Protein backbone atom coordinates (compact mmCIF):
# COMPACT_ATOMS: atom_id res chain seq x y z
CA UNK A 1 0.00 0.00 0.00
CA UNK A 2 2.79 2.39 0.97
CA UNK A 3 4.62 1.43 -2.17
CA UNK A 4 1.44 1.96 -4.17
CA UNK A 5 0.88 5.46 -2.77
CA UNK A 6 4.45 6.40 -3.43
CA UNK A 7 4.21 5.32 -7.05
CA UNK A 8 0.59 6.32 -7.61
CA UNK A 9 1.31 8.79 -10.40
CA UNK A 10 3.80 6.53 -12.13
CA UNK A 11 1.38 3.58 -12.05
CA UNK A 12 -1.51 5.75 -13.21
CA UNK A 13 0.53 7.01 -16.15
CA UNK A 14 1.50 3.44 -17.02
CA UNK A 15 -2.12 2.34 -16.89
CA UNK A 16 -3.25 5.28 -19.03
CA UNK A 17 -0.53 4.79 -21.61
CA UNK A 18 -1.28 1.07 -21.70
CA UNK A 19 -4.40 1.74 -23.78
CA UNK A 20 -2.26 2.86 -26.69
CA UNK A 21 -0.44 0.66 -29.20
CA UNK A 22 3.07 -0.27 -28.08
CA UNK A 23 4.79 1.90 -30.68
CA UNK A 24 3.19 5.10 -29.38
CA UNK A 25 3.67 4.37 -25.73
CA UNK A 26 7.06 6.07 -25.12
CA UNK A 27 5.94 9.25 -26.88
CA UNK A 28 2.59 9.25 -25.08
CA UNK A 29 4.29 8.73 -21.69
CA UNK A 30 6.53 11.73 -22.26
CA UNK A 31 3.63 13.87 -23.52
CA UNK A 32 1.59 12.94 -20.48
CA UNK A 33 4.36 14.01 -18.13
CA UNK A 34 4.80 17.25 -20.05
CA UNK A 35 1.10 18.03 -19.75
CA UNK A 36 1.18 17.29 -16.03
CA UNK A 37 4.15 19.59 -15.52
CA UNK A 38 2.57 22.33 -17.63
CA UNK A 39 -0.64 22.14 -15.60
CA UNK A 40 0.84 21.54 -12.17
CA UNK A 41 3.34 24.35 -11.89
CA UNK A 42 1.11 27.17 -13.14
CA UNK A 43 -1.45 25.94 -10.60
CA UNK A 44 1.24 26.12 -7.96
CA UNK A 45 2.07 29.60 -9.28
CA UNK A 46 -1.53 30.69 -8.75
CA UNK A 47 -1.43 29.34 -5.23
CA UNK A 48 1.89 31.05 -4.55
CA UNK A 49 0.67 34.48 -5.63
CA UNK A 50 -2.07 34.33 -2.98
CA UNK A 51 0.31 32.87 -0.44
CA UNK A 52 2.80 35.64 -1.15
CA UNK A 53 0.29 38.45 -0.95
CA UNK A 54 -1.21 37.09 2.24
CA UNK A 55 2.18 36.34 3.75
CA UNK A 56 3.55 39.78 2.92
CA UNK A 57 0.38 41.27 4.32
CA UNK A 58 0.80 39.45 7.60
CA UNK A 59 4.46 40.45 7.76
CA UNK A 60 3.36 44.07 7.44
CA UNK A 61 0.49 43.56 9.90
CA UNK A 62 -2.13 43.69 7.18
CA UNK A 63 -4.76 41.13 6.21
CA UNK A 64 -3.95 40.73 2.54
CA UNK A 65 -6.44 39.83 -0.19
CA UNK A 66 -9.65 38.47 1.35
CA UNK A 67 -12.46 39.46 -0.97
CA UNK A 68 -12.46 37.02 -3.88
CA UNK A 69 -13.81 33.72 -2.62
CA UNK A 70 -13.30 32.39 0.89
CA UNK A 71 -10.20 34.03 2.42
CA UNK A 72 -9.33 35.44 -0.98
CA UNK A 73 -8.17 32.15 -2.45
CA UNK A 74 -9.89 32.88 -5.75
CA UNK A 75 -7.78 36.02 -6.23
CA UNK A 76 -5.56 34.42 -8.92
CA UNK A 77 -8.67 33.53 -10.94
CA UNK A 78 -9.70 37.17 -10.90
CA UNK A 79 -6.16 38.25 -11.74
CA UNK A 80 -6.01 35.75 -14.59
CA UNK A 81 -9.30 36.92 -16.09
CA UNK A 82 -8.15 40.49 -15.74
CA UNK A 83 -4.84 39.93 -17.51
CA UNK A 84 -6.57 37.93 -20.27
CA UNK A 85 -9.08 40.66 -20.98
CA UNK A 86 -6.61 43.52 -20.91
CA UNK A 87 -5.47 45.17 -24.08
CA UNK A 88 -2.22 43.79 -25.41
CA UNK A 89 -0.23 46.87 -26.39
CA UNK A 90 2.83 46.65 -28.62
CA UNK A 91 4.67 49.97 -28.88
CA UNK A 92 4.76 51.42 -32.38
CA UNK A 93 8.54 51.51 -32.56
CA UNK A 94 9.03 48.10 -30.94
CA UNK A 95 10.47 45.13 -32.76
CA UNK A 96 7.17 43.28 -32.86
CA UNK A 97 8.50 39.78 -33.51
CA UNK A 98 11.10 39.82 -30.77
CA UNK A 99 8.67 41.61 -28.47
CA UNK A 100 6.24 38.75 -29.02
CA UNK A 101 8.85 36.01 -28.67
CA UNK A 102 10.52 37.21 -25.47
CA UNK A 103 7.86 36.04 -22.95
CA UNK A 104 7.47 32.76 -24.83
CA UNK A 105 11.20 32.07 -24.76
CA UNK A 106 11.24 32.79 -21.04
CA UNK A 107 8.38 30.46 -20.18
CA UNK A 108 9.55 27.68 -22.49
CA UNK A 109 13.14 27.67 -21.22
CA UNK A 110 11.97 27.79 -17.63
CA UNK A 111 9.63 24.86 -18.22
CA UNK A 112 12.50 22.89 -19.77
CA UNK A 113 14.30 22.99 -16.43
CA UNK A 114 11.55 20.94 -14.81
CA UNK A 115 12.26 18.07 -17.19
CA UNK A 116 15.26 16.88 -15.18
CA UNK A 117 14.01 17.48 -11.65
CA UNK A 118 13.20 14.26 -9.79
CA UNK A 119 9.90 15.08 -8.10
CA UNK A 120 9.54 11.72 -6.43
CA UNK A 121 10.98 8.24 -6.53
CA UNK A 122 11.16 7.45 -10.24
CA UNK A 123 9.22 10.61 -11.09
CA UNK A 124 11.52 12.40 -13.47
CA UNK A 125 10.55 13.26 -17.01
CA UNK A 126 14.00 12.90 -18.57
CA UNK A 127 16.55 11.18 -16.38
CA UNK A 128 19.59 12.32 -18.33
CA UNK A 129 23.10 11.70 -17.05
CA UNK A 130 24.09 15.36 -17.28
CA UNK A 131 20.84 16.62 -15.79
CA UNK A 132 22.48 19.37 -13.78
CA UNK A 133 24.27 20.66 -16.83
CA UNK A 134 21.03 20.64 -18.81
CA UNK A 135 19.30 22.53 -16.05
CA UNK A 136 21.91 25.27 -15.96
CA UNK A 137 22.01 25.49 -19.74
CA UNK A 138 18.27 26.11 -19.73
CA UNK A 139 18.52 28.49 -16.80
CA UNK A 140 21.11 30.52 -18.67
CA UNK A 141 18.78 31.01 -21.64
CA UNK A 142 16.36 33.02 -19.52
CA UNK A 143 18.90 35.83 -19.71
CA UNK A 144 18.40 35.84 -23.45
CA UNK A 145 14.66 36.31 -23.15
CA UNK A 146 15.08 39.11 -20.62
CA UNK A 147 17.39 40.94 -22.96
CA UNK A 148 15.09 40.27 -25.92
CA UNK A 149 12.26 41.88 -23.98
CA UNK A 150 14.34 44.88 -22.97
CA UNK A 151 15.84 45.45 -26.38
CA UNK A 152 12.75 44.95 -28.50
CA UNK A 153 10.60 47.33 -26.41
CA UNK A 154 12.74 50.25 -27.53
CA UNK A 155 12.24 52.03 -24.27
CA UNK A 156 15.07 53.33 -22.11
CA UNK A 157 13.64 51.89 -18.92
CA UNK A 158 13.18 48.49 -20.49
CA UNK A 159 16.69 48.51 -21.86
CA UNK A 160 18.27 49.68 -18.61
CA UNK A 161 16.26 47.10 -16.71
CA UNK A 162 17.34 44.37 -19.10
CA UNK A 163 20.99 45.44 -18.85
CA UNK A 164 20.78 45.31 -15.08
CA UNK A 165 19.02 41.97 -15.17
CA UNK A 166 21.57 40.44 -17.50
CA UNK A 167 24.52 41.82 -15.54
CA UNK A 168 23.02 40.52 -12.34
CA UNK A 169 22.08 37.12 -13.69
CA UNK A 170 25.48 36.54 -15.25
CA UNK A 171 27.25 37.64 -12.06
CA UNK A 172 25.23 35.31 -9.89
CA UNK A 173 25.21 32.43 -12.38
CA UNK A 174 28.85 31.85 -11.42
CA UNK A 175 28.34 31.34 -7.66
CA UNK A 176 25.19 29.37 -8.41
CA UNK A 177 27.17 26.93 -10.53
CA UNK A 178 30.16 26.89 -8.19
CA UNK A 179 28.07 26.03 -5.15
CA UNK A 180 26.42 23.19 -7.07
CA UNK A 181 29.77 21.89 -8.30
CA UNK A 182 30.67 20.98 -4.71
CA UNK A 183 27.72 18.58 -4.70
CA UNK A 184 28.82 17.09 -8.00
CA UNK A 185 32.37 16.63 -6.60
CA UNK A 186 31.11 14.67 -3.62
CA UNK A 187 28.48 12.64 -5.47
CA UNK A 188 30.59 12.04 -8.54
CA UNK A 189 27.60 12.45 -10.85
CA UNK A 190 25.76 15.14 -12.76
CA UNK A 191 22.57 13.10 -12.73
CA UNK A 192 20.03 14.62 -10.38
CA UNK A 193 18.43 11.24 -9.56
CA UNK A 194 21.87 9.95 -8.59
CA UNK A 195 22.42 12.98 -6.36
CA UNK A 196 19.15 12.33 -4.52
CA UNK A 197 20.00 8.63 -4.13
CA UNK A 198 23.36 9.59 -2.65
CA UNK A 199 21.59 11.60 0.08
CA UNK A 200 18.91 9.02 0.77
CA UNK A 201 20.69 7.15 3.61
CA UNK A 202 20.05 7.40 7.30
CA UNK A 203 22.26 7.16 10.40
CA UNK A 204 20.37 6.89 13.69
CA UNK A 205 17.22 7.86 11.84
CA UNK A 206 18.75 11.07 10.53
CA UNK A 207 19.30 11.66 6.80
CA UNK A 208 22.60 12.22 5.03
CA UNK A 209 21.47 15.39 3.32
CA UNK A 210 24.29 17.55 2.09
CA UNK A 211 23.00 20.54 4.04
CA UNK A 212 24.01 18.72 7.22
CA UNK A 213 27.70 18.89 6.28
CA UNK A 214 29.86 22.01 6.69
CA UNK A 215 30.50 22.42 2.96
CA UNK A 216 26.87 21.60 2.20
CA UNK A 217 25.53 24.22 4.59
CA UNK A 218 27.88 26.86 3.21
CA UNK A 219 27.05 25.77 -0.32
CA UNK A 220 23.33 25.88 0.41
CA UNK A 221 23.50 29.39 1.83
CA UNK A 222 25.48 30.57 -1.18
CA UNK A 223 23.15 28.71 -3.51
CA UNK A 224 20.15 30.36 -1.87
CA UNK A 225 21.69 33.83 -2.24
CA UNK A 226 22.61 33.22 -5.85
CA UNK A 227 19.20 31.67 -6.58
CA UNK A 228 17.43 34.71 -5.14
CA UNK A 229 19.51 36.96 -7.37
CA UNK A 230 19.10 34.66 -10.36
CA UNK A 231 15.31 34.78 -10.13
CA UNK A 232 15.34 38.58 -9.62
CA UNK A 233 13.64 38.27 -6.27
CA UNK A 234 13.82 40.84 -3.52
CA UNK A 235 16.32 41.98 -2.21
CA UNK A 236 17.93 41.47 -5.62
CA UNK A 237 15.01 42.84 -7.63
CA UNK A 238 16.93 45.75 -9.13
CA UNK A 239 15.94 44.92 -12.71
CA UNK A 240 12.41 45.95 -11.86
CA UNK A 241 13.15 48.62 -9.29
CA UNK A 242 10.00 50.63 -9.84
CA UNK A 243 11.40 53.72 -8.16
CA UNK A 244 14.07 53.94 -10.84
CA UNK A 245 12.94 51.91 -13.83
CA UNK A 246 9.13 51.84 -13.89
CA UNK A 247 9.02 48.04 -14.24
CA UNK A 248 12.35 47.18 -15.83
CA UNK A 249 12.40 44.98 -18.88
CA UNK A 250 8.66 44.33 -18.85
CA UNK A 251 7.68 48.01 -18.78
CA UNK A 252 6.19 47.78 -22.26
CA UNK A 253 4.33 44.54 -21.69
CA UNK A 254 0.68 44.40 -20.86
CA UNK A 255 -2.11 41.90 -20.81
CA UNK A 256 -1.27 38.26 -21.14
CA UNK A 257 2.32 38.80 -22.21
CA UNK A 258 2.95 40.49 -18.91
CA UNK A 259 1.22 37.60 -17.17
CA UNK A 260 3.61 35.26 -18.98
CA UNK A 261 6.59 37.18 -17.63
CA UNK A 262 5.10 37.00 -14.20
CA UNK A 263 4.51 33.27 -14.63
CA UNK A 264 8.05 32.80 -15.94
CA UNK A 265 9.51 34.53 -12.91
CA UNK A 266 7.62 32.33 -10.50
CA UNK A 267 8.31 29.19 -12.48
CA UNK A 268 12.01 30.05 -12.36
CA UNK A 269 11.66 30.37 -8.62
CA UNK A 270 10.03 26.94 -8.42
CA UNK A 271 12.59 25.26 -10.61
CA UNK A 272 15.54 26.80 -8.80
CA UNK A 273 14.01 25.89 -5.43
CA UNK A 274 13.43 22.40 -6.77
CA UNK A 275 17.04 22.13 -7.79
CA UNK A 276 18.20 23.46 -4.42
CA UNK A 277 15.99 20.88 -2.74
CA UNK A 278 17.47 18.17 -4.92
CA UNK A 279 21.06 19.22 -4.40
CA UNK A 280 21.16 20.05 -0.70
CA UNK A 281 17.91 19.02 0.98
CA UNK A 282 17.80 15.42 -0.15
CA UNK A 283 15.24 15.86 -2.93
CA UNK A 284 12.31 13.56 -2.33
CA UNK A 285 13.80 11.71 0.65
CA UNK A 286 12.11 11.86 4.04
CA UNK A 287 13.65 13.98 6.82
CA UNK A 288 13.57 11.05 9.31
CA UNK A 289 13.84 7.38 8.53
CA UNK A 290 10.62 6.57 10.40
CA UNK A 291 8.73 8.89 8.03
CA UNK A 292 9.76 6.79 5.06
CA UNK A 293 6.16 5.62 4.52
CA UNK A 294 5.02 9.11 3.44
CA UNK A 295 5.04 9.27 -0.38
CA UNK A 296 8.22 10.74 -1.79
CA UNK A 297 6.47 13.37 -3.92
CA UNK A 298 4.90 14.85 -0.81
CA UNK A 299 8.36 15.47 0.58
CA UNK A 300 9.62 17.05 -2.60
CA UNK A 301 6.72 19.47 -2.85
CA UNK A 302 6.77 20.26 0.88
CA UNK A 303 10.41 21.19 0.64
CA UNK A 304 9.70 23.20 -2.49
CA UNK A 305 6.91 25.15 -0.83
CA UNK A 306 9.05 25.66 2.25
CA UNK A 307 11.74 27.26 0.08
CA UNK A 308 9.07 29.44 -1.52
CA UNK A 309 7.96 30.55 1.94
CA UNK A 310 11.54 31.50 2.75
CA UNK A 311 11.68 33.52 -0.48
CA UNK A 312 8.52 35.34 0.58
CA UNK A 313 9.86 35.89 4.06
CA UNK A 314 13.04 37.42 2.65
CA UNK A 315 11.02 39.60 0.35
CA UNK A 316 9.01 40.89 3.27
CA UNK A 317 12.15 41.66 5.25
CA UNK A 318 14.90 43.06 3.09
CA UNK A 319 15.09 46.33 1.20
CA UNK A 320 16.43 46.43 -2.33
CA UNK A 321 20.20 46.57 -2.89
CA UNK A 322 22.02 49.18 -4.89
CA UNK A 323 23.74 48.10 -8.11
CA UNK A 324 27.30 48.44 -6.78
CA UNK A 325 26.38 46.64 -3.56
CA UNK A 326 24.96 43.84 -5.65
CA UNK A 327 28.07 43.48 -7.78
CA UNK A 328 30.47 43.84 -4.86
CA UNK A 329 28.58 41.21 -2.97
CA UNK A 330 28.66 38.76 -5.88
CA UNK A 331 32.28 39.16 -6.92
CA UNK A 332 33.98 40.06 -3.65
CA UNK A 333 32.16 37.85 -1.21
CA UNK A 334 29.99 35.08 -2.66
CA UNK A 335 32.34 34.01 -5.43
CA UNK A 336 35.48 33.70 -3.22
CA UNK A 337 33.42 31.85 -0.64
CA UNK A 338 32.14 29.36 -3.22
CA UNK A 339 35.67 28.83 -4.52
CA UNK A 340 36.85 28.17 -0.99
CA UNK A 341 33.89 25.87 -0.54
CA UNK A 342 35.09 23.79 -3.48
CA UNK A 343 38.45 23.33 -1.72
CA UNK A 344 36.68 22.43 1.50
CA UNK A 345 34.52 19.89 -0.31
CA UNK A 346 37.64 18.31 -1.75
CA UNK A 347 39.22 18.26 1.71
CA UNK A 348 36.06 16.66 3.11
CA UNK A 349 36.27 13.94 0.48
CA UNK A 350 39.91 13.09 1.25
CA UNK A 351 39.95 13.42 5.05
CA UNK A 352 38.26 10.09 5.63
CA UNK A 353 35.27 9.29 7.78
CA UNK A 354 36.46 10.46 11.19
CA UNK A 355 35.37 13.41 13.26
CA UNK A 356 38.45 15.43 12.21
CA UNK A 357 36.96 16.44 8.90
CA UNK A 358 33.93 17.97 10.63
CA UNK A 359 36.12 20.14 12.80
CA UNK A 360 38.60 21.12 10.11
CA UNK A 361 36.04 21.91 7.41
CA UNK A 362 33.72 23.82 9.76
CA UNK A 363 36.64 25.80 11.15
CA UNK A 364 37.93 26.80 7.72
CA UNK A 365 34.52 27.93 6.50
CA UNK A 366 33.59 29.73 9.70
CA UNK A 367 36.91 31.56 9.89
CA UNK A 368 36.72 32.52 6.23
CA UNK A 369 33.18 33.81 6.69
CA UNK A 370 34.07 35.87 9.73
CA UNK A 371 37.30 37.21 8.26
CA UNK A 372 35.85 38.05 4.86
CA UNK A 373 32.78 39.62 6.35
CA UNK A 374 34.85 41.70 8.72
CA UNK A 375 37.34 42.75 6.05
CA UNK A 376 34.69 43.45 3.47
CA UNK A 377 32.72 45.60 5.86
CA UNK A 378 35.83 47.50 6.95
CA UNK A 379 36.77 48.26 3.39
CA UNK A 380 33.21 49.12 2.53
CA UNK A 381 32.83 46.50 -0.20
CA UNK A 382 29.89 44.92 1.54
CA UNK A 383 27.76 45.90 4.47
CA UNK A 384 26.11 49.19 5.33
CA UNK A 385 26.24 52.12 3.00
CA UNK A 386 28.96 54.70 3.58
CA UNK A 387 28.28 58.27 2.57
CA UNK A 388 31.20 60.28 1.28
CA UNK A 389 29.81 63.71 2.04
CA UNK A 390 26.74 63.26 4.18
CA UNK A 391 28.43 61.75 7.23
Amino acid at each position, binding site marked *: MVERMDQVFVLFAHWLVGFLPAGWQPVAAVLLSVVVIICLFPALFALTTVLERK*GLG*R*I*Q*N*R*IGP*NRTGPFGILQPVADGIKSLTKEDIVPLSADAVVHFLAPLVLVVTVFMGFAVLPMGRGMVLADIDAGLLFFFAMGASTELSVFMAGWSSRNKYSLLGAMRAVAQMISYEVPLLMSSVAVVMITGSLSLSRIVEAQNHYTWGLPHWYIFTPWGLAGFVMYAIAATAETNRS*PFDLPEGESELVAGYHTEYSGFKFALFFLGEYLAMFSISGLGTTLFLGGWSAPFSFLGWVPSWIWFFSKLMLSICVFI*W*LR*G*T*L*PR*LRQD*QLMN*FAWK*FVLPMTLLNLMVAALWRFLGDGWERWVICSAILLLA*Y*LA*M*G*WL*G*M*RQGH*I*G*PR*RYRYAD
Partner: protein
Amino acid sequence: MITDNTVGGILLGEGILKGLTETAKNFAGSFVSAERLTTVEYPEQRVAPIEATRVFPFLVYDGKDWEAGMRCVACQICEKECPPKCIYIEKSKDKKPDAVGKPQFYPTKFDIDISVCMSCQICVEVCPFEAIKMDTEFELSTEDRFGGLLLGREQLSKSNEYYHEIHATEAANVDASLAAGRAKVDAKTTAVAIAAAVRGAEVPPRPAEGGD
Protein backbone atom coordinates in the same frame (compact mmCIF):
# COMPACT_ATOMS: atom_id res chain seq x y z
CA MET B 1 24.27 43.32 1.68
CA ILE B 2 22.49 45.36 4.28
CA THR B 3 23.40 44.76 7.89
CA ASP B 4 22.37 47.15 10.62
CA ASN B 5 23.09 50.84 10.76
CA THR B 6 26.12 50.75 13.01
CA VAL B 7 28.92 51.07 10.50
CA GLY B 8 31.65 48.47 10.88
CA GLY B 9 29.64 45.71 12.56
CA ILE B 10 31.51 42.53 13.37
CA LEU B 11 29.34 39.79 11.96
CA LEU B 12 28.16 39.85 8.38
CA GLY B 13 24.47 39.06 8.09
CA GLU B 14 23.63 39.93 11.67
CA GLY B 15 21.20 42.61 10.55
CA ILE B 16 19.46 40.22 8.20
CA LEU B 17 18.84 37.79 11.04
CA LYS B 18 17.48 40.60 13.20
CA GLY B 19 15.20 41.70 10.39
CA LEU B 20 13.99 38.17 9.79
CA THR B 21 13.08 37.75 13.46
CA GLU B 22 11.22 41.05 13.40
CA THR B 23 9.13 40.10 10.37
CA ALA B 24 8.53 36.62 11.78
CA LYS B 25 7.23 38.25 14.96
CA ASN B 26 4.93 40.44 12.89
CA PHE B 27 3.70 37.46 10.91
CA ALA B 28 2.91 35.33 13.95
CA GLY B 29 1.67 38.28 15.99
CA SER B 30 -0.85 39.35 13.38
CA PHE B 31 -2.68 36.05 13.89
CA VAL B 32 -2.60 36.27 17.67
CA SER B 33 -3.13 39.86 18.71
CA ALA B 34 -5.94 41.88 17.20
CA GLU B 35 -4.42 45.27 17.97
CA ARG B 36 -1.56 44.55 15.58
CA LEU B 37 -3.94 44.44 12.64
CA THR B 38 -4.88 48.05 12.08
CA THR B 39 -6.75 47.32 8.86
CA VAL B 40 -10.35 48.52 8.77
CA GLU B 41 -12.33 46.67 6.14
CA TYR B 42 -13.81 49.74 4.55
CA PRO B 43 -17.26 49.27 3.09
CA GLU B 44 -18.45 47.22 6.07
CA GLN B 45 -16.45 48.93 8.78
CA ARG B 46 -15.90 52.63 8.91
CA VAL B 47 -13.77 54.95 10.94
CA ALA B 48 -15.50 58.17 11.96
CA PRO B 49 -13.77 61.06 10.19
CA ILE B 50 -11.58 63.24 12.36
CA GLU B 51 -12.81 66.76 12.90
CA ALA B 52 -10.33 68.40 10.57
CA THR B 53 -11.34 66.15 7.65
CA ARG B 54 -11.87 68.08 4.47
CA VAL B 55 -12.77 66.86 1.04
CA PHE B 56 -14.61 69.31 -1.19
CA PRO B 57 -16.29 72.66 -0.41
CA PHE B 58 -20.01 73.12 0.18
CA LEU B 59 -22.27 76.16 0.68
CA VAL B 60 -23.79 76.83 4.10
CA TYR B 61 -27.35 78.10 4.47
CA ASP B 62 -29.21 79.23 7.56
CA GLY B 63 -32.73 78.21 8.39
CA LYS B 64 -34.81 75.62 6.60
CA ASP B 65 -34.94 76.77 2.99
CA TRP B 66 -31.65 76.57 1.16
CA GLU B 67 -32.53 79.15 -1.44
CA ALA B 68 -33.70 81.71 1.05
CA GLY B 69 -31.07 81.12 3.69
CA MET B 70 -28.00 80.98 1.49
CA ARG B 71 -25.14 82.91 3.04
CA CYS B 72 -23.36 83.38 -0.27
CA VAL B 73 -23.76 86.88 -1.68
CA ALA B 74 -22.04 86.13 -4.99
CA CYS B 75 -19.07 88.38 -4.24
CA GLN B 76 -17.02 86.05 -6.45
CA ILE B 77 -13.86 86.29 -4.35
CA CYS B 78 -13.61 82.50 -4.13
CA GLU B 79 -14.04 82.23 -7.90
CA LYS B 80 -11.13 84.59 -8.43
CA GLU B 81 -8.90 83.03 -5.80
CA CYS B 82 -9.48 79.40 -6.73
CA PRO B 83 -6.11 78.13 -7.99
CA PRO B 84 -7.44 75.48 -10.40
CA LYS B 85 -10.44 77.67 -11.32
CA CYS B 86 -13.06 75.08 -10.52
CA ILE B 87 -15.70 77.53 -9.25
CA TYR B 88 -18.17 79.21 -11.59
CA ILE B 89 -20.56 81.85 -10.24
CA GLU B 90 -23.27 83.89 -11.91
CA LYS B 91 -24.32 86.89 -9.89
CA SER B 92 -27.97 87.83 -9.66
CA LYS B 93 -29.29 91.08 -11.06
CA ASP B 94 -31.71 91.67 -8.20
CA LYS B 95 -31.28 91.58 -4.46
CA LYS B 96 -33.25 89.51 -2.04
CA PRO B 97 -33.28 89.42 1.73
CA ASP B 98 -30.81 87.09 3.42
CA ALA B 99 -31.27 85.24 6.72
CA VAL B 100 -31.40 88.45 8.77
CA GLY B 101 -33.58 90.24 6.25
CA LYS B 102 -30.91 92.46 4.69
CA PRO B 103 -31.20 92.66 0.89
CA GLN B 104 -28.23 90.98 -0.80
CA PHE B 105 -27.13 89.72 -4.18
CA TYR B 106 -27.20 85.95 -4.50
CA PRO B 107 -25.68 83.47 -6.93
CA THR B 108 -28.07 82.39 -9.66
CA LYS B 109 -25.51 79.79 -10.54
CA PHE B 110 -22.79 78.34 -8.34
CA ASP B 111 -20.93 75.36 -9.80
CA ILE B 112 -17.91 73.51 -8.47
CA ASP B 113 -16.23 70.97 -10.68
CA ILE B 114 -14.93 68.47 -8.12
CA SER B 115 -12.90 66.69 -10.76
CA VAL B 116 -10.81 69.87 -10.92
CA CYS B 117 -10.97 70.93 -7.26
CA MET B 118 -7.81 70.15 -5.35
CA SER B 119 -9.30 70.60 -1.85
CA CYS B 120 -6.90 73.43 -1.00
CA GLN B 121 -9.50 75.25 1.12
CA ILE B 122 -8.46 78.68 -0.17
CA CYS B 123 -12.08 79.50 -1.04
CA VAL B 124 -12.99 78.86 2.59
CA GLU B 125 -10.22 81.10 3.84
CA VAL B 126 -11.05 84.03 1.59
CA CYS B 127 -14.83 83.97 2.06
CA PRO B 128 -15.81 87.02 4.18
CA PHE B 129 -19.35 85.69 4.70
CA GLU B 130 -18.55 82.25 6.12
CA ALA B 131 -20.62 80.90 3.26
CA ILE B 132 -18.33 78.21 1.88
CA LYS B 133 -16.93 75.44 4.07
CA MET B 134 -15.27 72.07 3.59
CA ASP B 135 -17.38 68.94 3.47
CA THR B 136 -16.42 65.47 4.72
CA GLU B 137 -18.39 63.53 2.12
CA PHE B 138 -15.95 61.45 0.09
CA GLU B 139 -18.01 58.74 -1.60
CA LEU B 140 -18.61 60.76 -4.73
CA SER B 141 -17.98 58.26 -7.49
CA THR B 142 -20.37 58.48 -10.35
CA GLU B 143 -20.93 56.89 -13.73
CA ASP B 144 -21.01 60.24 -15.51
CA ARG B 145 -17.58 61.71 -15.23
CA PHE B 146 -18.54 65.14 -16.60
CA GLY B 147 -22.02 65.98 -15.39
CA GLY B 148 -21.80 63.80 -12.32
CA LEU B 149 -18.76 65.59 -10.98
CA LEU B 150 -20.03 69.10 -11.68
CA LEU B 151 -21.96 70.03 -8.54
CA GLY B 152 -24.58 72.78 -8.80
CA ARG B 153 -26.12 75.11 -6.25
CA GLU B 154 -28.69 72.74 -4.86
CA GLN B 155 -26.19 69.89 -4.45
CA LEU B 156 -23.67 72.17 -2.78
CA SER B 157 -26.08 73.78 -0.34
CA LYS B 158 -26.08 72.20 3.07
CA SER B 159 -27.62 73.46 6.29
CA ASN B 160 -25.80 75.05 9.17
CA GLU B 161 -26.96 72.10 11.30
CA TYR B 162 -25.08 69.78 8.96
CA TYR B 163 -22.03 71.98 9.33
CA HIS B 164 -22.33 71.66 13.11
CA GLU B 165 -22.55 67.94 12.71
CA ILE B 166 -19.34 67.54 10.69
CA HIS B 167 -17.15 70.28 12.18
CA ALA B 168 -18.62 71.03 15.62
CA THR B 169 -15.93 73.32 17.05
CA GLU B 170 -15.35 75.23 13.87
CA ALA B 171 -19.06 75.75 13.28
CA ALA B 172 -19.56 76.99 16.85
CA ASN B 173 -16.74 79.50 16.37
CA VAL B 174 -18.23 80.64 13.09
CA ASP B 175 -21.66 81.06 14.68
CA ALA B 176 -20.17 83.03 17.55
CA SER B 177 -18.24 85.36 15.27
CA LEU B 178 -21.29 85.85 13.04
CA ALA B 179 -23.43 86.62 16.09
CA ALA B 180 -20.79 89.04 17.38
CA GLY B 181 -20.70 90.73 14.00
CA ARG B 182 -24.47 91.04 13.94
CA ALA B 183 -24.52 92.34 17.52
CA LYS B 184 -21.96 94.94 16.53
CA VAL B 185 -24.00 95.98 13.54
CA ASP B 186 -27.13 96.08 15.69
CA ALA B 187 -25.35 98.13 18.35
CA LYS B 188 -24.16 100.52 15.71
CA THR B 189 -27.56 100.93 14.15
CA THR B 190 -29.19 101.43 17.53
CA ALA B 191 -26.43 103.89 18.47
CA VAL B 192 -26.98 105.74 15.23
CA ALA B 193 -30.73 105.70 15.81
CA ILE B 194 -30.28 106.96 19.35
CA ALA B 195 -27.87 109.63 18.20
CA ALA B 196 -30.28 110.67 15.49
CA ALA B 197 -33.12 110.76 17.98
CA VAL B 198 -31.01 112.82 20.38
CA ARG B 199 -29.97 115.13 17.58
CA GLY B 200 -33.55 115.32 16.39
CA ALA B 201 -34.61 116.46 19.85
CA GLU B 202 -31.92 119.17 20.10
CA VAL B 203 -31.74 120.59 16.63
CA PRO B 204 -34.81 121.54 14.72
CA PRO B 205 -35.04 119.55 11.52
CA ARG B 206 -33.43 121.14 8.54
CA PRO B 207 -35.47 121.73 5.48
CA ALA B 208 -35.80 118.72 3.28
CA GLU B 209 -32.52 117.89 1.54
CA GLY B 210 -32.39 117.66 -2.19
CA GLY B 211 -30.72 114.62 -3.77
CA ASP B 212 -26.94 115.18 -4.07
